[in-house]
């Protein structure tokens, strides 16, 4: 179809057929305000509910105002985005939204990051005349281990619902009831924890207001740090270093590993360690499992479960436990790096440094909200005491009066702070399986890899596949990020694995951990995720050691403690089991 001509605020332009007024306006530098609209191009997420009506514009020849986000351009259209009629309507719409919204911005977790607040600031609202003494919709607050839902602050934009159903295909959230009672909730309004919610936190990542927030634990960390009796150990996930800088005004994709370590030390952590170390251990365990399953398969053992699925992502584990219970025999039993770290710290490290278990507090800094839930799972025995997000860490640093931008770069402590390039890439989609391939290749073939970069496993496509030649074998690898994409691959496996996958990596969040629910808010700008991804690969390239099995402290850990991957001791401390979770 041919391009369409449109005039917006007196400026003429042409756009391809199908474009909305909102998209056309952007091309001529007109930024129409939006609230419910969200288009995450790379993750198939388009929320076009047109429910908030803040983006209304005047279209010549049209009787009523049109929502710019959902109105397609027609040829010769003349649009006015700032007439008195439009500005008045927008003001009324905003006042109506605010009339049924709590006025506690000063103490709201989203304050400063809230899109409703931004619009109010932009409009210069000085008084809310509508519904001054009117009743406010009110709902009970629902707190899970990871997410807090305060629906009093909901503006019914339905972004969370779109994310939960269309992108993640989890189906925990839906609009319920009618009129003033209408609200986004779970089936039968059960608590999130009793629903199929995976705690991936993507609803929090896209919520424009404070209706969906994380369950904060930063103050618990402060209390432990102040307790002289406690030995407080911290671990930081790979994706945190590629995003934390954004909270301090740095360009997306700025690596702040050294500054982050300095800040953590300055906050008073006794040992600043790295989850990356545990990611290297994960490769040892998961890689050994992969090699074991494949060699048994090649030897003709038909009872082997293939493909093996990665198990690092806690939201993904929650997903398979509730939605694909018949496939629970295929994920690797290896614990996630967070939990491996907790187990290593409270066993190996505690014994080595003579620290009584009850005196040690393990804090994790995660790009993730599901990690909070994971840390609380009873089978993990409080190995990780507190998990806080990238955002919470930024908050802690700011509260401690640390001038983050001007900090000198420092190094992690040893022994649990040494890591390889293989572990850093755990933070992006495709990274875990690339790291595993680097090790599995050398173990299976006995040869040294010439080039450790497996470009064919990288990228941003939702579902990817590649075949890697490993000795005489073609290793078929699948990759999915975003739970909707994971569902696609799982249905395929359920249907008999026609593409003959041997190993599959799954990450629940779009982009992998770099796009996690605990990361700085991207406000719909997916370019930010790509910059974080590039940063992760830069960090990998800059490492002298880039294969997990070559990490000297990992070697030492096995030589002195676990003997070998999948040993009895490793099994009891570094592996887990899964069970069906029957939820609505």
């Amino acid at each position, binding site marked *: 179809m041919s391009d369409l001509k449109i005039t917006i605020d007196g400026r003429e332009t042409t756009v391809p057929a199908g474009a909305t007024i909102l998209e056309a306006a952007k091309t001529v530098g007109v930024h129409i305000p939006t609230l419910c609209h969200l288009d995450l191009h790379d993750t198939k997420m388009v929320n076009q509910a047109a429910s908030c009506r803040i983006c209304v514009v005047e279209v010549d020849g049209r009787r009523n105002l049109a929502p710019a986000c959902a109105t397609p351009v027609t040829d010769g259209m003349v649009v006015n985005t700032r007439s008195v009629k439009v500005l008045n309507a927008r003001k009324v719409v905003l006042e109506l939204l605010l009339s049924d919204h709590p006025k506690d911005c000063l103490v709201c977790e989203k304050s400063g990051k809230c899109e409703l607040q931004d619009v109010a600031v932009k409009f210069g609202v000085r008084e809310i005349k509508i519904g001054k003494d009117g009743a406010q919709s009110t709902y009970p607050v629902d707190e899970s281990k990871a997410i807090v839902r305060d629906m009093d602050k909901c503006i019914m934009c339905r972004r969370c619902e779109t994310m939960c159903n269309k992108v993640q295909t989890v189906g925990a959230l839906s609009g319920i009831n009618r009129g003033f009672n209408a609200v986004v909730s779970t089936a039968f309004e059960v608590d999130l924890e009793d629903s199929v919610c995976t705690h991936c936190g993507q609803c929090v990542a896209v919520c424009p207001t404070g209706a969906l927030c994380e369950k904060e634990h930063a103050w618990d960390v402060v209390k432990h740090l102040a307790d002289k009796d406690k030995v407080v150990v911290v671990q930081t996930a790979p994706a945190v270093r590629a995003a934390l800088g954004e909270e301090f005004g740095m360009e997306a994709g700025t690596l702040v590993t050294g500054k982050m370590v300095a800040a953590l030390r300055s906050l008073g952590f006794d040992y600043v360690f790295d989850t990356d170390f545990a990611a290297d251990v994960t490769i040892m365990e998961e890689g050994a499992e992969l090699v074991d399953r494949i060699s048994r398969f090649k030897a003709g053992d038909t009872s082997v479960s293939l493909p093996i699925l990665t198990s690092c992502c806690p939201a993904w584990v929650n997903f398979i436990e509730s939605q694909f219970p018949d496939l629970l025999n295929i994920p690797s039993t290896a614990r996630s790096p967070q939990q491996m770290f907790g187990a290593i710290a409270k066993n190996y490290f505690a014994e080595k440094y003579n620290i009584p278990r009850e005196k040690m507090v393990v804090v994790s800094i995660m790009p993730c909200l599901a990690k909070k839930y994971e840390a609380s799972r009873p089978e993990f025995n409080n190995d990780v005491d507190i998990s806080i997000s990238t955002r919470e860490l930024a908050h802690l640093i700011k509260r401690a009066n640390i001038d983050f931008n001007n900090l000198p770069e420092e190094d992690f402590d040893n022994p649990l702070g040494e890591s390889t390039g293989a572990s850093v890439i755990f933070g992006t989609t495709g990274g875990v399986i690339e790291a595993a391939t680097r090790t599995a290749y050398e173990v299976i073939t006995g040869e040294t890899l010439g080039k450790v970069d497996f470009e064919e496993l990288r990228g941003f496509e939702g579902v990817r596949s590649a075949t890697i030649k490993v000795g005489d074998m073609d290793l078929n690898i699948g990759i999915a990020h975003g739970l909707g994409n994971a569902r696609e691959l799982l249905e395929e496996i359920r249907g008999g694995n026609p593409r003959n996958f041997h190993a599959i990596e799954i990450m629940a969040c779009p982009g992998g951990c770099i796009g996690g629910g605990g990361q700085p808010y991207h406000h719909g700008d997916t370019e930010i995720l790509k910059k974080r991804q590039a940063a992760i690969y830069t960090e990998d390239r800059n490492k002298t050691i880039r294969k997990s099995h070559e990490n000297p402290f990992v070697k030492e850990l096995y030589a002195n403690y676990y003997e070998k991957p999948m040993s009895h001791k490793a099994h009891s401390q570094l592996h887990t089991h899964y069970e069906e979770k029957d939820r*609505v």
Partner: protein
Amino acid sequence: MSCESCKNELANELYAQLAKFIDELPEKRGALISVLHKAQSIFGYLPREVQIFVGKKLGVPVSQVYGVVSFYSFFTMIPKGKYPISVCLGTACYVRGADKVLDVFKRELGIEVGQTTADGKFSLDALRCVGACGLAPVVLVGEKVYGRIGTAEEVKKIIAEYQE
């Protein structure tokens, strides 16, 4: 019908009926509302278990099933009484005092509109115009129509009729 196994047998039969209806649908997509309609006609109401059953059978998240059930006033999660009472609040009935009639029912039965008495005997609903405006105010018990109900005494008499 008092023994547990008889009850289960009955329930199984009802679920089988619903399953058959769903299986015979030419297209499952977009069928949620008609399936819920059918389910309510089979079970009399839409308890949790039935909604979960429908969700699984149609491949629709239970949250969305509940979203639809909670949206339409036609769907109910509360079982109707053995004798469902409906008071017409249409214009003709209303101007002739149907709201007061409804109040008497609420008081006498001790329930609100949409609820069912603890003994499961009566449920109370309000509806709009049954097309018998000449008899306003009109009350229905099941399919039976009572016209020109004006006083509290008359309401009590209706209830008494169904108290064995």
